[in-house]
């Protein structure tokens, strides 16, 4: 049986590209794909702004980048999970707590999915959320400051992949474990043989509550699940508001050579979780408290400082006891994307190895649950009958379907990794209506507003895994590539290639009009509550606490105060708390010390940042500003003198004192 299926699959794989390469379907070669007016459609004249922000995950660089659409111009890289020496993220004393976890300081992660906050299922322009895949975390970025404001670690999880997709009113962000693994509730990782996978390995999905006003996150509850792998997820909307859907693979419960061993069955699952019901059970005290350890890190915009708190408990719900919170829906074959259409009725799951796109009907799913129309159970969880919940299948759409987004006009756009194309199809009729090639091996795709109730449509952006031949070569490694297609007409049209940083996975695009007007320009110096702020040069000073020397320094075009410091001794730890006194947009100041085993700090107008420096030798060390903002930029510098331990040089500091006259001048 298994062999026959494999043969069938290979036959399909070999014949489909022949079918798909008919004339009119794909251009002869990549260069013929762009039509003459493409350039004018992506041209944003100097002084003009783009129509959309594209918030893009940074993949293995652990960050998030912001591009303009349609121009494809890169505006900013927002440090999230990875150290960023440019701004001092993770290097400054204020940001170090943000990268704290139960494993200690983890200076990197793997970001995959962006989720923009929504109200009533529509973008509200407040926050962007992104997952850390490796050391399970979710981060929240403010779309007013474009800075990471909060990071929460996910306990009982390994590989936070199906995350951080949000419910319609951003009530919850979800976190499904990619790797199932042995869990217990004793705050430990049990030491068991890997061969006991089927007995000991478990999965969880977590629902992370989001405070309506502040956005602050807390792990509200988790659902304990069989040891499958969770891949992607989407919330329901409208009629399916109370539900969340996850794709699962490895229902074979294999632990080795998964490319073969997790591809054995014809069907894996889409998992439907009734989160409203879970919420009720948690309120009713039906959850079990599990002892865990996870970090919760919050950045305060007024003190400009992050704090990290370790939490030790989480509420876990068991669907083997609470029978009506989780259902499995059979889905061909290793489903990856699991996407809900704007109406909330249709759930499109893409079996990576399947030759169809199954589209499930939410109303049929509800009927099947009410009728107990189950084909059986999987590890104690009811499995609904495939035919009873299926709206229909899109037949032979292409090879390797991954992700689907919607334009709000009744069409779905699915990315095909193996056949490198985007296929547009009619959701109601399940018919393919258009296809365009991508260059090459597309992963996620993004329609502005595509995962919301009211997509903004207009474009689809492809995030490709392979960039071969699209740009000038840069050695064995090439930039990642995104491609912009116009979907305003009946046919998709390629408009632009643009390079991206990291390996972008998912991205969302949001109208500029929802974000730009709320953009913060400066931090008000009056509201700066940093414990070491110097609000004005008059408050600048240096003092000693044992072997710690605190420098409350100010910066303004074009000098530091103080800029001459003496009396630091070997063995001292020097903390430069630099306050940028500017109250003018786009005038950050930098601060760097020669030989510091650290980064620079980049201080925004009205902000205070702290750089720790432990001198490793005596002498006089220059400090200077790294960010050019005035004609006297080079003059923005100073000196710190470091004397031997035990020397009697007093701690002094000054700005503007003239050098002592030399012997000759006397």
């Amino acid at each position: 049986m298994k062999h026959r299926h494999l043969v069938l699959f290979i036959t399909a794989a070999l014949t489909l590209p022949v079918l798909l390469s008919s004339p009119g379907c794909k251009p002869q070669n990549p260069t013929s794909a762009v039509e003459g007016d493409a350039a004018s459609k992506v041209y944003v004249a100097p002084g003009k702004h783009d129509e959309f922000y594209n918030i893009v995950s940074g993949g293995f660089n652990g960050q998030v980048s912001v591009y303009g659409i349609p121009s494809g111009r890169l505006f900013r890289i927002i440090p999230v999970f990875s150290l960023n020496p440019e701004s001092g993220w993770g290097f400054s004393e204020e940001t170090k707590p943000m990268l704290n976890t139960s494993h200690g300081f983890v200076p990197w992660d793997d970001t995959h999915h962006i989720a923009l906050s929504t109200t009533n299922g529509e973008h509200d322009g407040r926050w962007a959320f992104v997952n850390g895949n490796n050391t399970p975390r979710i981060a929240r970025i403010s779309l007013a400051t474009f800075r990471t404001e909060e990071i929460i670690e996910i306990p009982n999880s390994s590989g936070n992949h199906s995350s951080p997709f949000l419910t319609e009113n951003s009530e919850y962000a979800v976190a499904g474990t990619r790797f199932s693994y042995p869990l217990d509730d004793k705050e430990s990782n049990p030491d068991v043989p890997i061969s006991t996978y089927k007995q000991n390995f478990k999965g969880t999905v977590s629902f992370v509550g989001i405070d309506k006003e502040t956005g602050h996150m807390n792990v509200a509850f988790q659902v304990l699940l069989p040891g499958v792998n969770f891949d992607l997820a989407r919330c329901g909307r409208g009629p399916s508001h109370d539900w969340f859907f996850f794709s699962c693979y490895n229902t074979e419960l294999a632990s080795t050579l998964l490319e073969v061993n997790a591809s054995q069955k014809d069907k894996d699952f889409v998992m439907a979780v009734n989160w409203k019901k879970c919420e009720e059970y948690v309120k009713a005290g039906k959850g079990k408290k599990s002892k865990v350890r996870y970090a919760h890190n919050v950045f305060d915009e007024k003190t400009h400082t992050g704090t990290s708190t370790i939490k030790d408990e989480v509420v876990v719900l068991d669907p083997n006891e609470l029978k009506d919170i989780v259902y499995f829906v059979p889905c061909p074959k290793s489903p990856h994307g699991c996407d809900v259409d704007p109406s909330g009725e249709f759930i499109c799951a893409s079996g990576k190895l399947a030759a169809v796109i199954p589209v499930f009907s939410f109303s049929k799913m509800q009927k099947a649950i009410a009728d107990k129309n189950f084909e059986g159970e999987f590890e104690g969880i009811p499995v609904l009958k495939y035919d009873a919940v299926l709206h229909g299948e899109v037949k032979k759409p292409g090879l390797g379907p991954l992700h689907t987004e919607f334009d709000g006009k009744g069409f779905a756009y699915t990315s095909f990794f193996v056949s490198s194309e985007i296929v547009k199809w009619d959701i109601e009729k399940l018919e393919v209506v258009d296809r365009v090639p991508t260059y090459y091996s597309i992963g996620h795709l993004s329609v502005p507003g595509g995962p919301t109730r009211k997509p903004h449509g207009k474009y689809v952006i492809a995030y490709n895994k392979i960039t071969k031949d699209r740009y000038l070569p840069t050695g064995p490694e090439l930039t990642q590539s995104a491609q912009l297609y116009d979907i305003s007409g009946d046919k998709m049209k390629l408009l632009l290639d643009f390079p991206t940083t990291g390996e972008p996975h998912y991205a969302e695009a949001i109208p500029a009009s929802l974000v730009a007007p709320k953009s913060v320009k400066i931090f008000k110096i009056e509201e700066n509550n940093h414990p070491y702020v110097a609000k004005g040069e008059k408050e600048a000073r240096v003092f000693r606490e044992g072997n710690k020397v605190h420098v409350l320094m100010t910066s303004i075009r074009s000098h530091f105060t103080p800029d001459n410091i003496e009396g630091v001794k070997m063995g001292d730890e020097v903390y430069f708390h630099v306050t940028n006194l500017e109250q003018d947009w786009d005038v950050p100041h930098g601060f760097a010390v020669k030989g510091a085993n650290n980064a620079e700090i980049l201080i925004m107008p009205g902000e205070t940042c702290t750089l720790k420096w432990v001198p490793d030798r005596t002498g006089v060390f220059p400090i200077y500003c790294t960010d050019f903002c005035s004609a006297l930029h080079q003059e923005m510098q100073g000196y710190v003198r470091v004397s031997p331990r035990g020397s009697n040089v007093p701690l002094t500091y000054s700005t503007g004192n003239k050098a002592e006259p030399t012997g000759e001048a006397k």
Partner: protein
Amino acid sequence: MSGKATLFTAFLLLAFFACTSKKEAEEKAKKSPTASELAIPQPEVHGTEIKSVELTNPLKSEWVSTGKSIYETKCLACHKLTDERVVGPGWAGVTKKRQPVWIMNMITNVDMMLETDAEAQKMLEECLVRMPNQNVSEEDARKILEFMRSNDGEK
């Protein structure tokens, strides 16, 4: 075979449809908002031009002390109270040299001053650092002016 033929025909039909609707699509593209229409104007907040300032004697002592504390946070880094120039000119005698309106606009409306006022331009040539917009409100600028007057010996 027939499947392939159907698929092929479907593509031809689609291509045909695409050609006939190309004009429509172009019209639509023209009608859809352009980047410039959607661009949010984000001018610097410098307040509007101040045309007149009312001075009274004696000085309002409360304004003098508020003006002094704003000076210490936002101005002292570049302006001494003597006639010594640091980054910007010292403030000693400034209220004798400049009209109150000129001072107020220099604080709240520096871009306009550097564009239009010959005296302000001359000072930029001397100092070579554009005076930063420190986001001082008109009300606060008036208090700074009061402090300057007090610094110049007015009672």
